[in-house]
C-alpha cells in the first residue's frame, strides 16, 4: 500500500526480543516453550511473599552483544526499576524493567528497502526486562486461566527513533533486527513462539509539516505481515480522520488481523500511571570494560560485512552473498565448504541449490543438515578432480542425504561411479558410432553443432554416464577434423 498523496508517515518501533537463555531473568526456572501451564513457574515467578529476584548473568552478555552489534553505547552502570500495575498475569503487581538507565543507549542499523535502497535507522535504547504471564480467556466460560510459564522470561526491548517512513521500511527494519538478533545468538527469532513482538508508534503529517503528528501506539504485533498490515491501516485511519477535519488524540491501539483494523485500547488521559521507582531488591548493574572487550573479541562477523567479503573473496553474486551471509549457520556452512574445496562458486551453488532445497523441503535448519560441510566439500572435490560428473554428483548427494554413505569417495568407488577418462576405452565407441551414423557425422563436420549433443549423449548412454562429457566432446571433434 502506498502512502496517501500529500502525507508523510513517521514510525518508531519497540521490539520485544526474548533472550535465548536456558533459565528466566530473575529465577532458575526453565524458559522452554510449550510446556504444561504453570509447570515452569517457581516461587519467584509466582511472586510468592518473601522471595527475591536474582539476575541471570547470561542476559547481560546477550544485551551487550546486541549493543555492540548496533554500535550502541553500553552503560557501565544501569539500573532496574519497578513498573507498577495490577493484572492477573503479572504476579508481583509490578514488572521489573529498566526505565531511566537502560543497559544500551544509542546505536544504528542499516536496512535495505525493496528497491535495494539503503538507509540507516537510529536506535534510541535497548533495555532488559521480564515478560509477564499469559491470560487465557477462552478455555472456560466466565473464567480466565493464568499461565505463568512465560512470567520472568528475559526480554530485550529495542526502541528505535521515528526514522521509518513507511510500513515497508518498518518491516525491513524489523527484519534487519531479527537477522542481527539471531546472528548474535541473542534471540532465537522464532516468531511463532512469540520470541519477537512489535509495538509500532505511528503518526502522519502533511508533507510540508515540520513537527511530528499525534501518534498512536499499536501493541503486540507478532508477525512481519501483521506489522505491515497494522501500519498501513493505521496510516489510512489517521489520514482519513484528519482529512475529515477531526483531531487525533494520542492513544494505544490493538490490531485485529481478522477485521484488518486497529481499535483504541486506552487514550493518553486514561493511561496507567506506572509509578516507576528503582528496584530495591537488585543492585545497580555494573558492566566492566573487560567484560565488554571480551564480548567484542568474540563477536562474529555481521551479515553486512560478511556479504561484501563473500563477493570479493569467493566471487559470489550479490544475491548469493546476501542469501548465504544472511543466516549465520548457512554462512558458516558455506564458508567451510568453500575453504575445503577452494571453489567458492561451486560451494555456493551446491549449498544454496541442492542443500538448501532439501532443507527447505523437509523444513530443516542448517544445523540439522544430515550432510556435513566436510562431506559437501569432498563431493565437490570429486567433481573438480574429474572423478565424477555433475550428474553423478547428484546421485552421491542423494546417498549422503539419505545416510547411505558418509564418505563420498568410497561410495563412488564402491558403486563404480567414476568417470571413464581412459581415451583408449572411449575411442572405439566413438568410431563405431560415427560409422553407424554417417549422415549425422557428415552434417556435424559441416558445422551443424547441435549434433554434437546427439553423439555425446550416445557415448554417455553407452558408458552408463561415467564418461567425461568434455573429454568425449573433444575426442569427437578430433576424429572429425580433417
Amino acid at each position, binding site marked *: 500500500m502506498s502512502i496517501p498523496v500529500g502525507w508523510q508517515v513517521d514510525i518508531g518501533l519497540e521490539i520485544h526480543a526474548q533472550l535465548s537463555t536456558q533459565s528466566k531473568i530473575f529465577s532458575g526456572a526453565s524458559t522452554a516453550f510449550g510446556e504444561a501451564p504453570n509447570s515452569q513457574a517457581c*516461587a519467584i515467578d509466582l511472586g510468592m*511473599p518473601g522471595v527475591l529476584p536474582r539476575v541471570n548473568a547470561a542476559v547481560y552478555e546477550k544485551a551487550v552483544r546486541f549493543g555492540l552489534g548496533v554500535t550502541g553505547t553500553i552503560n557501565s552502570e544501569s539500573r532496574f526499576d519497578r513498573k507498577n500495575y495490577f493484572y492477573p498475569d503479572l504476579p508481583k503487581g509490578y514488572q521489573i524493567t529498566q526505565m531511566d538507565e537502560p543497559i544500551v543507549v544509542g546505536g544504528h542499523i542499516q536496512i535495505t528497502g525493496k528497491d535495494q535502497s539503503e538507509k540507516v535507522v537510529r536506535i534510541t535504547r535497548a533495555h532488559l526486562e521480564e515478560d509477564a504471564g499469559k491470560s487465557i480467556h477462552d478455555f472456560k466460560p466466565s473464567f480466565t486461566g*493464568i499461565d505463568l510459564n512465560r512470567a520472568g522470561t528475559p526480554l530485550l526491548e529495542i526502541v528505535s527513533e521515528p526514522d521509518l517512513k513507511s510500513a515497508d521500511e518498518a518491516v525491513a527494519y524489523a527484519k534487519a533486527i531479527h537477522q542481527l538478533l539471531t546472528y548474535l545468538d541473542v534471540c532465537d527469532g522464532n516468531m511463532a513462539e512469540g520470541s519477537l513482538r512489535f509495538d509500532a508508534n505511528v503518526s502522519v503529517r502533511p508533507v510540508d509539516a515540520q513537527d511530528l503528528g499525534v501518534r498512536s501506539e499499536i501493541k503486540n504485533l507478532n508477525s512481519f505481515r501483521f506489522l505491515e498490515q497494522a501500519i498501513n491501516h493505521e496510516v489510512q485511519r489517521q489520514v482519513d480522520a484528519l482529512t475529515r477535519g477531526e483531531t487525533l488524540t494520542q492513544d494505544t491501539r490493538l490490531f485485529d488481523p481478522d477485521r484488518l483494523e486497529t481499535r483504541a485500547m486506552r487514550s493518553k488521559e486514561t493511561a496507567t500511571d506506572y509509578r516507576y521507582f528503582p528496584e530495591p531488591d537488585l543492585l545497580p548493574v555494573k558492566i566492566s570494560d573487560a567484560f565488554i572487550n571480551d564480548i567484542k573479541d568474540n563477536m562474529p562477523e555481521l551479515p553486512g560485512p560478511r556479504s561484501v567479503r563473500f563477493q570479493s573473496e569467493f566471487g559470489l553474486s550479490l544475491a548469493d552473498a546476501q542469501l548465504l551471509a544472511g543466516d549465520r549457520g548457512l554462512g558458516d556452512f558455506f564458508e567451510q565448504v568453500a575453504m575445503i574445496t577452494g571453489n567458492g562458486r561451486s560451494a555456493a551453488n551446491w549449498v544454496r541449490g541442492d542443500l538448501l532445497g532439501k532443507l527447505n523441503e523437509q523444513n530443516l535448519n542448517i544445523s540439522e543438515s544430515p550432510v556435513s560441510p566436510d562431506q559437501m566439500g569432498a563431493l565437490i572435490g570429486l567433481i573438480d578432480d574429474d572423478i565424477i560428473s555433475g550428474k553423478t554428483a547428484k546421485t552421491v548427494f542423494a546417498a549422503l542425504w539419505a545416510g547411505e554413505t558418509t564418505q563420498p569417495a568410497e561410495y563412488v568407488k564402491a558403486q563404480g561411479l567414476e568417470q571413464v577418462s581412459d581415451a583408449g576405452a572411449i575411442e572405439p565407441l566413438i568410431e563405431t558410432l560415427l560409422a553407424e551414423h554417417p549422415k549425422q557425422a557428415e552434417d556435424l563436420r559441416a558445422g551443424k553443432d547441435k549434433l554434437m549433443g546427439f553423439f555425446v549423449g550416445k557415448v554417455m548412454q553407452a558408458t552408463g554416464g561415467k564418461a567425461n562429457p568434455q573429454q568425449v566432446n573433444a575426442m569427437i571433434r578430433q576424429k572429425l577434423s580433417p
Partner: protein
Amino acid sequence: MNLRSATIAELRAFLDRGDISAVELTDYYLDRIDRFDKSLNTYITRTADTARASAIAADKVIAQGKATSLTGIPIAEKDLFCIEGTRTTAGSKMLANFKAPYTATVSTKLANAGAITLGKTNMDEFAMGSSNENSYFGPVRNPWDLNRVPGGSSGGSAAAVAAGLCAASTGTDTGGSIRQPAALCGLTGLKPTYGRISRWGMIAFASSLDQAGPMTRSAEDAAIMLEHMAGHDPQDSTALAEPVPAYTSALNNDIKGLRIGVCQAFFDTDLDAEVAAKTREALRVLESLGAKLIDIALPHMAYSLGAYYVIAPAECSANLARFDGIRYGYRCENPEDLQDLYTRSRGEGFGQEVKKRILVGTFALSAGYYDAFYGRAQRVRRLIKQDFVEAFNQVDVIVGPTTPTPAFGIGAKAESGVDMYLQDIFTISASLAGVPAMSIPAGLVADLPIGLQLIGNYLDEATLLNLAHQFQQATDWHTLIAPEAP
C-alpha cells in the same frame, strides 16, 4: 539452674553439662507458653511437634559433642520469616492460612545450627506499627505491665523473650521494629548493617530498609545469634559478601579510649525527662569504663521521620501489590469481576494501617508527585547517610536513647498516627543510613524498662556488641526479669 532468666550462653552450659536435655528444655518453654501466652498473646503459631523432634535430634548432637553455640536452644521466629510446612501470616488476615513452599535463609541457618523453633511470634501486620496493636491476631501485651504495649512491630518476639517463653527470638527492623520493642520489654535487640543478614524468605515491607536481627537477654546472646544469622546469600542480591567475624570472640576487648558520639539532637526532642536522665547515667557508666564522650552533630536527623514515611510506604505499596487474591492468600467471597476481586480481597484482607501506608506510598510515587515526595525523600536519605559517614570519621559509636518514653498503654496512641510514628524518631535515621544499631536495657522508669541505643559504623557490629557487653558487665539492668504473667 534458673531457667527463667537464663541466657543462651548459660543454657549452653546446662545442656553441655547434661544438667538438662534439649527435650526437657523445650518442654519447659512449651509448658510456659501454655500457661502464660493466653494473657500475653506472643505466639501466632506454636510448632510443638517439630520443636520436640528437633530437640531429640539436638540431644544426639550434644551427646556426640558436636554442639554449636545454638544446638538445643529453643527460640521463637517472628511470623514474617517463611518456614516450609508452617503457616506464615505476617500478622495479617491476608495470609492467615498461608504456607510457603520454602524457608527463609535466616530460619534455615538457625535450624542448621541446631536451634529449636518453638513457634511463630505475633507482630504488627506486615511489620507496620510500633505497638503490636495492628495484628489480625490481636495485640500482644507487655509482660512488665499487661495494660501496656510491648512495642512493635516485633512485639511478639520481644514479649516472648521477656516473659521467658523462649530463650531468644528473631525480629525484623525497618525503622526500629527490633530496637523499640527490645527497649520497651527490657531486652537486647540488634539491627545489623543493611545486607548483613539475607532477606530471602522474609516477607518484605520496605526492601531497602528491612533487616533481620536477634532479640535476646544479653549482648553475648546477640553475638551468638548474629554469628549464625549473618552471611552472604546468593538468593539475596543485596546481602553483603563480607565474611562474618567471630562476634563472640570480640566481646571482652577493652573499651578504653573508645570514642562515643553524643548527639544533642537526641535530647532536644520530646524526650521524657526520666528517660533522658537514665540515658545520661548510662553515658557516665561508659565514661567510667574508659570511653571518651564527644559531641557530634547529625544535622539532617530532624528530616529522617518525614523521609522514612515517604520511602517505606512507597516501597510497601509495590511490595504488597502481590497480595491480590489471585494466586494465594485471602480472596473475597463471590467476586463480581476482576476489579471487585481486587478491591474487596485487598480491602478485606489488609488492616487499616497497612491500607493507609499503601495509599500514602502510591500517592508519593504518582506522576507529578514523584519528585516532590519520593525524589526528595531519597535526597534527604543521602544527606542522612552522609551525616553518619562524617560522624564516624570522629567517633566509633553513637549513643543515645532508643525511644522517647517507656511502654505506653494499649490504645493510648492508636488514634493518632503521628504520635505513634514519633516512637521511632531515634531509630529511623540508622535505618535510613543502613548502619547497625542496637538497643540494650538502661534501667527502669516508673517500673518499666527503657533502652539505650548504640549506633555503629557500617559492618562494625563487633564494636557495638563489645561495647554493649562491657556495659552489661558493669550494670545489671539486662538481668531484670518481668513479673510473671497471670
